[in-house]
């Protein structure tokens, strides 16, 4: 791993954590919108009968997203630790190689050879472990896309139901808009995370 690669890897992993934190905020907003919609639907009674089960769906989706993001956050933290480990072993290899050059002619220069070989093996194994975690994280991020897509479908249904809610039309439409907007933001942010991760993997190949 070159120095510039290490830096971009640190930045990418840190940016994923930042994007995930934003996703979490948006998911919490959706949860709030669901509670708000439930209250409106309750007040609207018969006029918003079709809207009531939708509010439960919205809430479930928000909860599912929050749970997934929590899981992914723990994984992203693990990825950061692996990046630190990889950077340390890469640095160590660099310094061991320098020492081996400087030690030429020293009585015990040969004792450095096994150390150098072991460090190179650890470096390769550390890279493989990092890549394995990136692939797993990409899959988990893909899972977050599902509730985000479902939320957009629910938002479309909500608009239809809202249109039959009489004087509650505007309030329920606002809920539908806010869910749709939030789902779009989650989709975009998760997409950015996936792109950043793919970049790390591709640059290492």
């Amino acid at each position: 791993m070159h120095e510039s690669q290490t830096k971009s890897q640190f930045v990418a992993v840190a940016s994923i954590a930042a994007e995930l934190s934003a996703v979490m905020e948006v998911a919490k907003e959706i949860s709030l919108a669901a509670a708000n919609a439930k209250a409106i639907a309750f007040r609207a009674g018969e006029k918003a009968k079709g809207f009531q089960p939708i509010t439960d769906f919205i809430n479930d989706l928000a909860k599912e997203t929050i749970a997934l993001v929590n899981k992914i956050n723990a994984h992203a933290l693990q990825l950061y630790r692996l990046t630190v480990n990889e950077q340390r072993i890469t640095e160590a290899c660099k310094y061991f190689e320098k020492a081996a050059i400087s030690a030429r002619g020293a009585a015990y220069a040969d004792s450095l050879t096994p150390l150098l070989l072991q460090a190179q093996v650890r470096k390769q194994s550390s890279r493989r472990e990092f890549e394995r975690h990136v692939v797993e994280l990409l899959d988990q991020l893909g899972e977050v896309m599902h509730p985000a897509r479902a939320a957009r479908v629910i938002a479309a249904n909500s608009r239809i139901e809202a249109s039959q809610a009489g004087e509650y039309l505007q309030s329920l439409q606002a809920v539908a808009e806010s869910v749709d907007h939030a789902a779009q933001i989650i989709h975009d942010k998760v997409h950015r995370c996936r792109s950043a991760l793919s970049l790390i993997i591709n640059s290492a190949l």
Partner: protein
Amino acid sequence: MKMTKIYEGSHQWIMFGRDPHKADKIIDTNQYLVRTGRRCLLIDPGGIELFAPMLAAVLHYAPVEEITDLFASHQDPDIISSLGLWDQALPKAKLHASALWEGFLRHYGCDSIEYVAIPDNGGVINLEGLELKIIPAHYLHSSANFHIYDPIAKVLFSGDVGAALEAPGAPMFVENFDTHVDKMRFFHQRWMPSNQAKRVWIDKVRSLDIQIMAPQHGRVFKGDDVKRFLDWFENLQVGIAV
């Protein structure tokens, strides 16, 4: 890296310093190796930039697997910021350092090396029967600070006490104590915070039989220059910044 044997008997003391490749703005440091039959103690191994030249220099005296112990007199980067690399190179080694600094020193990376925490009253490092005494030197300058005394070789590793700021390539030993004083005065007055700590240390060290006093910067004191240093230091007011 210049390598100088400062004691040879049943075991060896080797001093490393005056690295010609050292960057200009980095302070020059002395590192020491105590070598017994099959074990080595590396004293104040140095900054991260010094790791490769130090490891290469040590290989003139011992194989990697026989570097079994490290000692850090205190927490400063010029003393031990190379720890993360030694940790990768010597996974079975022990680091002897103050209990007080453990949580701080681990920031440099200490996953494999065993951290042997030194209590405030010091202790002993045993290298195949050679008992090296860990002498407390708190507040000289660090709040948890230790020196090493070898009663067989009569060598005192004195950390920052006795340090001098020198031009690159300065000789390894003090040749004229009176002229050397100018290179030590400000360093000791500004870096050492406590006259009380200084007096306690001098009382302790005067009870030891010392032939060589080896600081972490500057030159090594031999014979009567050790006593001259203690007298000079006793009369010096330190902690001058306040």
